[in-house]
């Protein structure tokens, strides 16, 4: 692809300078083909002086040939010159004829002109007469018009009289108007008085409004106060609410207390129940103890009974024993009596004393028995008595206990009843207090509600009052405003009516004035008409003057035409002079051609030298295969130079040819003066010229052959070295590649393109990925691979420098860099 690009570029570069030369060479060749047929001998050593001695004979022979050819050419030229002379004569004849004809034409034209002029004069005279007649008619018409106008004038005078009358009327009207104006003014004054009254009323009403506003303000103050009261009441309310909240809290506390007291009551009742239970138990114990007492009393009674029984027994026994004692004592007395009675008798007394002792023993015994029983009885009796006493003691104790417990119970009952009573009393008091507080609360709530209701009512009342007051005020204000507006409207109506009157009067005035103006304008119009008529008269007179002027102008034109004819004659003479001058110039150009011929010789020499150089290069190229590429490079460079030289020489040649051709053309003119000698020289020169051109063509051919050979050599070299493309082609994209070379290398280019593409890819990859310092080195490679222009490369460098440095601004692409991006390029594949 690069190669293609390069090729394209190279071709463009190669083509660019050539078109001139390419166009010129064929021309020279064609001329050569025409003229070089008869070119033959001619000895010309002068131009050969500087060439080498060895080639002299050959050159001499060549020169002879050249000279022959040139001579032949010269003869041709002489023939041509003769032909041209004949032509010239013919042309001169034609010119004379033309001049004659033109002279004739001029005379004819002159005659024609004079005829036309006479005709014109006649026509003019006729037209003037006609116009005079017309003007006479017109004048008569105008006179008639004048008469009419005079009549009109009279009418106008009459009209002006009437106008004066109208003016008088107008004055009267104005007087009337003034009177009316005075009346209107009077009315206006009245209205103003009315207005002032209305304004006074207004002021009064405004004062009223102010007073009402003051009242309003008072009422607003009142309302403010009321609002303040309201606020206070609300504050009180809030305080009451707070108190209520406190009372509710205390109620709650009291209720809590009550509940606590009730709980205590319950506890106390429970205690009492327990106590009663204890009492019952104690009573039961008492009853049981009474029962026991009864039992003990029963036992005691039984014991008493036993005791009494024992006593009675004892008593019985005592009585018995007493009785016994008594009987025994009687028996003892009987026995003692008997013993006394038997004393005398001693047996009978001893028996009796024996019996008495037995009886006494027996009595002791009984007595003992008795004492024993008595002690026993006493003992039992004491025991019983102790028992009874014990029982009695116990009874007494029990009774004491009972009594104590009874007392205790009574005391406890009393205490508990007292406590209960107290508690109940406290409860009742608390309840009462609660009720009282609730009542108080209710009262306060009622108070609050009443207060709120009162407040609301008051507020409502106040708001009502306010609203009413406001409404009243608003009504008042509205009324006042309405009154004011009514008054104002009345005033305005009055004003408008007054204005209307005034405007009407003014309109009347204006209409009157307009009438006046109309009349004046009519007068002016009439006067203007008069003036216009006068102007028309004057303009018609001027028209007649202009016609006379036009006549004079036609005369002047005639004179101008005569002058033009004279000018044309002088121009013809000038042309003939110019022709002679140009002939002289031709002679000078011949001399220049001689000089140029010398230059051309030098160029030819150069060409020969270059040819020799080429030959030496050729031999060198054949010599060494290794150094062939280098040689090729040099040779191509030299070739380039040669080509450039060739181009230059060709251009010179072409310029020379141009000059020669120009000279050739002018030769026809100069033939008379220079004669056949100069023509011969020119022919010689032209021959040499053509020969040199031929030589150049030959050299070109040899150069091409050399290039082809070089290409072949390269090819063979590459084949030997297994080289694929020719790298130098890429390196020197500016050098125009030899056409044959590019043709032969086409097959290899595809490969190299691929490699180049891969290489390009790699380089671009590296360029993008490398550090800036490295990338900076790669710029050149990238720009070579992508065929960047110098500006594009510089842009790249600047951008990289910008990236590497801390400061500076981003460089903008300038010149041809940007357009080159959009320039169509060869596609990559």
């Amino acid at each position, binding site marked *: 692809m690069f190669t293609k690009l390069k090729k394209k570029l190279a071709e463009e570069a190669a083509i660019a300078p050539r078109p001139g030369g390419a166009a010129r060479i064929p021309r020279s060749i064609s001329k050569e083909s025409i003229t070089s047929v008869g070119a033959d001998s001619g000895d010309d050593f002068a131009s050969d002086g500087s060439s080498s001695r060895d080639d002299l004979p050959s050159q001499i022979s060549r020169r002879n040939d050249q000279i022959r050819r040139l001579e032949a050419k010269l003869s041709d030229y002489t023939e041509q010159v003769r032909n041209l002379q004949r032509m010239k004569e013919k042309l001169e004849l034609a010119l004379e004829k033309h001049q004659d004809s033109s002279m004739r034409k001029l005379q004819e034209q002159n005659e024609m002109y004079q005829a036309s002029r006479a005709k014109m004069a006649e026509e003019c005279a006729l037209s003037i007469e006609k116009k005079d007649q017309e003007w006479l008619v017109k004048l008569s018409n105008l006179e008639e018009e004048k008469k009419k106008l005079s009549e009109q004038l009279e009418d106008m005078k009459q009209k002006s009289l009437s106008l004066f009358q109208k003016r008088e009327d107008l004055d009267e009207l104005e007087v009337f108007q003034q009177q009316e104006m005075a009346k209107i003014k009077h009315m206006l004054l009245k209205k103003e008085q009315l207005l002032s009254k209305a304004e006074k009323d207004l002021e009064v009403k405004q004062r009223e409004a102010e007073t009402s506003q003051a009242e309003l303000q008072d009422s607003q103050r009142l309302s403010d106060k009321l609002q303040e009261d309201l606020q206070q009441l609300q504050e009180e309310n809030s305080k009451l609410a707070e108190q209520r909240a406190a009372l509710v809290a205390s109620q709650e506390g009291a209720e809590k207390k009550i509940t606590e007291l009730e709980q205590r009551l319950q506890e106390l009742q429970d205690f009492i129940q327990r106590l009663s239970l204890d009492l019952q138990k104690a009573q039961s114990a008492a009853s049981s103890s009474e029962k026991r007492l009864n039992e003990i009393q029963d036992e005691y009674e039984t014991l008493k009974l036993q005791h009494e029984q024992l006593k009675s027994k004892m008593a019985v026994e005592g009585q018995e024993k007493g009785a016994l004692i008594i009987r025994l004592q009687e028996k003892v007395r009987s026995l003692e009596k008997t013993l006394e009675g038997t004393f005398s008798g001693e047996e009978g007394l001893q028996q009796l004393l024996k019996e008495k002792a037995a009886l006494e023993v027996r009595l002791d015994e009984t007595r003992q028995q008795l004492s024993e029983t008595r002690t026993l009885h006493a003992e039992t009796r004491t025991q019983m008595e102790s028992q009874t006493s014990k029982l009695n003691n116990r009874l007494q104790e029990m009774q004491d206990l009972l009594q104590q417990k009874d007392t205790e119970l009574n005391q406890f009952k009393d205490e508990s009843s007292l406590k209960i009573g107290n508690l109940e009393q406290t409860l009742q008091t608390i309840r009462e207090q609660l009720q009282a507080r609730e009542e108080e609360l209710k009262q306060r709530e009622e108070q609050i509600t009443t207060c709120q209701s009162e407040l609301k009512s008051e507020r409502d009342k106040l708001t009502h009052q306010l609203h009413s007051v406001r409404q009243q005020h608003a009504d008042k204000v509205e009324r006042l405003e309405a009154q004011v507006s009514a008054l104002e409207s009345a005033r305005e109506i009055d004003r408008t009516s007054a204005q209307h009157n005034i405007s009407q009067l003014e309109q009347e005035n204006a209409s009157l004035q307009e009438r006046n103006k109309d009349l004046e304008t009519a007068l002016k119009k009439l006067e203007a008409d008069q003036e216009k008529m006068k102007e028309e008269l004057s303009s018609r007179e001027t028209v007649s003057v202009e016609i006379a002027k036009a006549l004079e102008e036609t005369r002047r034109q005639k004179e101008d035409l005569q002058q033009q004819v004279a000018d044309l004659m002088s121009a013809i003479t000038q042309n003939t002079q110019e022709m002679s001058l140009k002939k002289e110039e031709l002679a000078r150009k011949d001399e220049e051609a001689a000089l140029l011929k010398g230059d051309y010789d030098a160029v030819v020499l150069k060409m020969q030298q270059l040819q020799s150089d080429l030959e030496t290069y050729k031999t060198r190229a054949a010599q060494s295969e290794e150094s062939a590429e280098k040689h090729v490079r040099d040779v191509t460079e030299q070739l380039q130079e040669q080509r450039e030289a060739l181009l230059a020489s060709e251009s010179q040649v072409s310029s020379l040819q141009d000059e020669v051709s120009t000279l050739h053309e002018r030769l026809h003119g100069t033939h008379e003066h220079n004669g056949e000698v100069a023509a011969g020289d020119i022919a010689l020169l032209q021959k040499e010229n053509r020969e040199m051109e031929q030589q150049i063509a030959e050299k070109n051919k040899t150069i091409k052959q050399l290039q082809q050979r070089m290409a072949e050599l390269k090819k063979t070299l590459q084949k030997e070295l297994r080289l694929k493309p020719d*790298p130098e082609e890429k390196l020197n994209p500016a050098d125009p590649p030899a056409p044959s070379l590019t043709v032969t290398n086409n097959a290899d280019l595809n490969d190299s393109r691929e490699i180049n593409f891969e*290489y390009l890819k790699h380089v671009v990859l590296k360029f993008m990925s490398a550090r800036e310092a490295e990338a900076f080195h790669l710029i050149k490679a990238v720009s070579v691979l992508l065929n960047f222009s110098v500006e594009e490369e510089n842009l790249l460098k600047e951008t990289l420098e910008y990236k590497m440095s801390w400061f500076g601004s981003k460089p903008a692409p300038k010149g041809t860099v940007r357009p080159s991006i959009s320039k169509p390029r060869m596609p990559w594949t």
Partner: protein
Amino acid sequence: MYQLNLSDILLFSAAIGFNVETVTYKNLKFQVWDLGGQTSIRPYWRCYYSNTDAVIYVVDSCDRDRIGISKSELVAMLEEEELKKAILVVFANKQDMEQAMTPTEVANSLGLPALKDRKWQIFKTSATKGTGLDEAMEWLVESLKSRQ
């Protein structure tokens, strides 16, 4: 054939293209451009000539056929104006091969003795074994330092 502008590396890549590496050797910082030696790439060598202090020219000592091309390439390269002051180091590579030319042979076939106005030295190296590189780098560092 490989050419290195400055190198101690022997990571010679056969890839189409080149490698850039910055290597510090004996307090000298080398920016090494490993340019490929392929025929198609050779034309692009000249893109990298600017600001070059030294050229390391690596030659295949075994390739007797192409040593001539190597010579012509080297001569063409050394003619460049931008490399006028560059030191030349030639690596006679592949010395581990049996048929390898000796460094003197290589130097002669490259026409090194004919070089005037240029500091040059040849070293035998083996890229696969990594021998001969240190001496070469030593010499290069010394000659660069002495030039400064």
